[in-house]
């Protein structure tokens, strides 16, 4: 089989762009493409022309945005995940039964979707939207038709005998004007005189619904005594046609033999001219004999070549073998089209199925359909049936993964369906993970809830780099919008020490400017996360100091304050603030800082003041600042000295007594 998709490719038209005179510049987004009219040649000169007034956003996977299809995507996702988890140990019959069940589940989901769309299409018949729904229904109907055939041939693997019964069911399911026609005719006063009576009878025979056909014939017999005899004979022929019934234990050979006898009996009646006086009945007899010409006279009723094929097989080769199907299929197609028209994409797909060329089926479907949903799920199912040889891509994956990831890519563009996309990636062992990594970072985090969902997905899969990156993006956004608490919690989640330091610095700066902390809840409950960075630890401890002070645990507060400086956790730039915070503690009635602690504080103060660099020409503001600084230092020195005195006395007297 030749590789590659073939042309033609889809051409889409962008409004407002004149490709005769101009060109287009573009850029990719995660789910859409940005396009704009430009002119590549005229680079140096500016035209001062109004230029292109519009930029265009092109979206490819529009099906993802359809509300009704969304149900299809959701439900099929459930079936897909269930399929991946099917026990590997199941073999043989039970495995096959399970796979058939999965296939039927998929099909019932398609039909449910079709039903719903059909309602909308009917309700809205005359509008453009109604027509759109109608066409979607058609497409889904084709999809279900193909899937059903694939189920019969590839999954059920129906052998000769049952094969025909399955194909009959298949045709009956998809050509359904019969029921409404039947209702029409039977509901009328004189059914056999209804203008569509013979069409109905013929259609029933074409579909192998011989019991119903016989009932119709009896109505004709009742109302038209001259044909009663012929009707009875034909009815008998219909009744006695040998068919393989499910519970029947006869062998294929026995069936063939009996069928041959019956066929010969029908032939005899035709030769004897039993039905000669009634062209309708004679035509029906020819149909029973599988006469191609007679069948083709009813082209309108058959409406398509595959119906023609199945009817032909029913009345000429009921024990057809699967491997011979394609011969009859090809001749049926040729006869039915009669050289007047050429095969359409659907015809090619069905033909490929009859030829048991699975790869061709998948390839043709990929071309004909705009959404990857169908090929992805069908290929996955067929892969589970071990029917696909794996074709290695140049980066070492296979067709199944290729299609599943194509489908998943479309899902990621959607604001809620992206979650389904994750599961599809999970079940692609070769490329799923890296694909997920690329997609998940691009999901716009419009709400906190969504961000948390995305992060949970990453954390569950140990995608640490993605967690870090996403948290960083959120932290940065929070910082730019001055939401420091949010920025801090995202930095902590990202385990980003550097950024945590940065945000802590902002907090501290805020405190210095406003005299109070924002986001106290967060800082109070940092827990072990406090250890992420020194600055963050300092922030947490500093807040603790304020809490202790507020609760009047002065001694503890004092010790903490001192330790912040002596342990070097506090940044130098903050020491003056800390020392200033010590002032109220120094001026309490009772002595809080011990003598030793006071010596330490003095040392810190000296450290701080001696290390002050003199920078160039001080301006007026700087002089004023310096003045304030000098005053503060003096006040501190005084307070410390006083405290030293008091503490020495206090400690001295305690020792003494």
């Amino acid at each position: 089989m030749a590789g590659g998709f073939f042309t033609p490719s889809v051409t889409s038209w962008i409004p407002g762009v004149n490709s005769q005179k101009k060109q287009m510049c573009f850029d990719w987004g995660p789910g859409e493409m940005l396009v704009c009219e430009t002119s590549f040649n005229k680079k140096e000169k500016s035209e001062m022309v109004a230029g292109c007034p519009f930029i265009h956003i092109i979206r490819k996977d529009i099906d993802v945005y359809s509300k009704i299809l969304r149900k299809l995507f959701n439900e099929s996702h459930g079936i897909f995940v269930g399929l991946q988890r099917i026990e590997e140990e199941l073999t043989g019959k039970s495995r096959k039964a399970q796979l058939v069940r999965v296939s039927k589940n998929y099909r019932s989901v398609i039909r449910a979707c079709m039903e719903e769309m059909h309602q909308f299409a009917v309700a809205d018949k005359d509008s453009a939207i109604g027509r759109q729904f109608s066409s979607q229904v058609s497409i889904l109907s084709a999809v279900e038709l193909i899937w059903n055939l694939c189920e019969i041939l590839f999954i059920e693997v129906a052998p000769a005998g049952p094969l025909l019964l399955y194909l009959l069911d298949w045709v009956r399911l998809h050509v359904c004007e019969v029921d409404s026609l039947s209702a029409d005719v039977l509901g009328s006063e004189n059914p056999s005189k209804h203008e569509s009576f013979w069409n109905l009878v013929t259609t029933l025979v074409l579909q192998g619904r011989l019991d119903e056909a016989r009932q119709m014939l009896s109505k004709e017999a009742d109302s038209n005594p001259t044909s009663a005899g012929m009707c009875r004979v034909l009815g008998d022929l219909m009744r006695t046609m040998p068919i393989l019934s499910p519970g029947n234990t006869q062998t294929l050979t026995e069936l063939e033999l009996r069928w041959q006898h019956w066929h010969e009996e029908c032939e005899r009646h035709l030769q004897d001219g039993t039905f000669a006086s009634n062209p309708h009945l004679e035509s029906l007899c020819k149909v029973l004999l599988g006469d191609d010409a007679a069948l083709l006279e009813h082209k309108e009723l058959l409406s398509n070549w595959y119906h023609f094929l199945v009817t032909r097989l029913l009345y000429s080769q009921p024990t057809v073998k699967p491997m011979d199907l394609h011969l009859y299929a090809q001749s049926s197609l040729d006869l039915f089209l009669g050289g007047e028209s050429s095969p359409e994409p659907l015809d090619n797909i069905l033909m490929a199925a009859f030829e048991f060329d699975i790869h061709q089926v998948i390839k043709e479907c990929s071309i004909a359909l705009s959404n990857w949903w169908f090929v992805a799920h069908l290929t996955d199912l067929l892969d589970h049936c071990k029917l696909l040889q794996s074709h290695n891509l140049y980066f070492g994956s296979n067709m199944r993964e290729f299609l599943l990831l194509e489908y998943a890519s479309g899902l990621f563009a959607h604001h809620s369906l992206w979650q389904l996309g994750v599961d599809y990636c999970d079940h692609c062992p070769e490329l799923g993970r890296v694909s997920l990594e690329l997609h998940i970072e691009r999901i716009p985090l419009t709400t906190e809830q969504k961000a948390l969902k995305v992060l949970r997905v990453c954390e569950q899969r140990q995608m640490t780099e993605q967690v870090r990156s996403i948290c960083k993006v959120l932290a940065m956004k929070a910082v730019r919008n001055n939401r420091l608490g949010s920025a801090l919690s995202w930095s902590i989640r990202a385990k980003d020490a550097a950024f945590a330091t940065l945000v802590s610095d902002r907090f501290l700066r805020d405190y210095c400017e406003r005299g109070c902390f924002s986001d106290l809840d967060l800082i109070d409950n940092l827990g072990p996360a406090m250890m992420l960075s020194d600055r963050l630890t300092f922030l947490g401890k500093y807040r603790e100091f304020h809490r202790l002070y507020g609760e009047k645990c002065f001694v503890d507060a004092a010790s903490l304050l001192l330790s912040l400086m002596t342990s070097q956790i506090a940044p130098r730039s903050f020491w003056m603030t800390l020392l200033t915070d010590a002032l109220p503690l120094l001026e309490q009635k009772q002595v809080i800082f011990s003598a030793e602690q006071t010596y330490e504080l003095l040392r810190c103060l000296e450290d701080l003041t001696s290390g002050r660099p003199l920078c160039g020409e001080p301006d007026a503001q700087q002089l004023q600042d310096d003045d304030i600084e000098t005053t503060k230092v003096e006040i501190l020195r005084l307070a410390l000295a006083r405290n030293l005195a008091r503490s020495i006395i206090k400690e001295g007297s305690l020792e003494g007594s």
Partner: protein
Amino acid sequence: MFVARSIAADHKDLIHDVSFDFHGRRMATCSSDQSVKVRAEPGSKRDLARPATHSGSVWRVTWAHPEFGQVLASCSFDRTAAVWEEIVGESNDKLRGQSHWVKRTTLVDSRTSVTDVKFAPKHMGLMLATCSADGIVRIYEAPDVMNLSQWSLQHEISCKLSCSCISWNPSSSRAHAPMIAVGSDDSSPNAMAKVQIFEYNENTRKYAKAETLLTVTDPVHDIAFAPNLGRSFHILAIATKDVRIFTLKPVRKELTSSGGPTKFEIHIVAQFDNHNSQVWRVSWNITGTVLASSGDDGCVRLWKANYMDNWKCTGILKGNGSPVNGSSQQGNSNPSVGSNIPSLQNSLNGSSAGR
């Protein structure tokens, strides 16, 4: 099948470049009207931020990774490249909650028109490269991500030919050293090597030339490394008189002289002349599975490798000059484009649908 919606671009002159941000929510455009504009979806909060300006036509605009905040870079005919940052108004400010763009730095080292500017992959920090008609690629870094007014020129790579485009290799694998590809549209007859690839050397701390694509002898207008989906080799697309796709497979280290730049096995895997004219832009989608190209024929073409590794055209975007359907509203995606491929629905016109 594609659906288009249109947003007013609001430029007074020809637009030269459009750029989607990382999440596909905001769009930057730059124009011969010397401005850079940022748009978001109409109706969303931050639309139509005040424009940023150069003093010459602006050729390209590009977004930095959102890890660095809301940052843009642009390059212009005025011989400069600029870095812009979005500032959200302070809460006690009249502009509360509103944003505007501030030019943080102007990079003035080039003596000629700056033709391209691209940010390096995020794992390299906040770094960008520019290339100019004077044949020099300049790599700048902002050591402090919170202070975008400080950028230092880290490297100057002399390409000896007028440069038109650059592309960083987005691969963040530890196995690959940073790599940058440079294309030249120099049309002088002596200028042969139109595509050069430079690689960073840990030992010398410099960029050294690793490869020249000898088979590309026509002027190159655009160049793009593909995102790496876990491959061991690199893919490079080139816009020249046609579309070309190359693979570069690193040759095993033992076979090369130690300490030198990596040697590559270079193969051309696709060459398309469907544009039938000069190709001006090439760009990869985010997973590196589809390449888009834009040419003098006024079309944008999409190229994809199927699961058998054959590259084919899978879509064409074209303009027929038809009028735009008024202004777009959010959520209004009436298909204003159609397709001409016989679809399945046509095949079913003979049979019945529904139940």
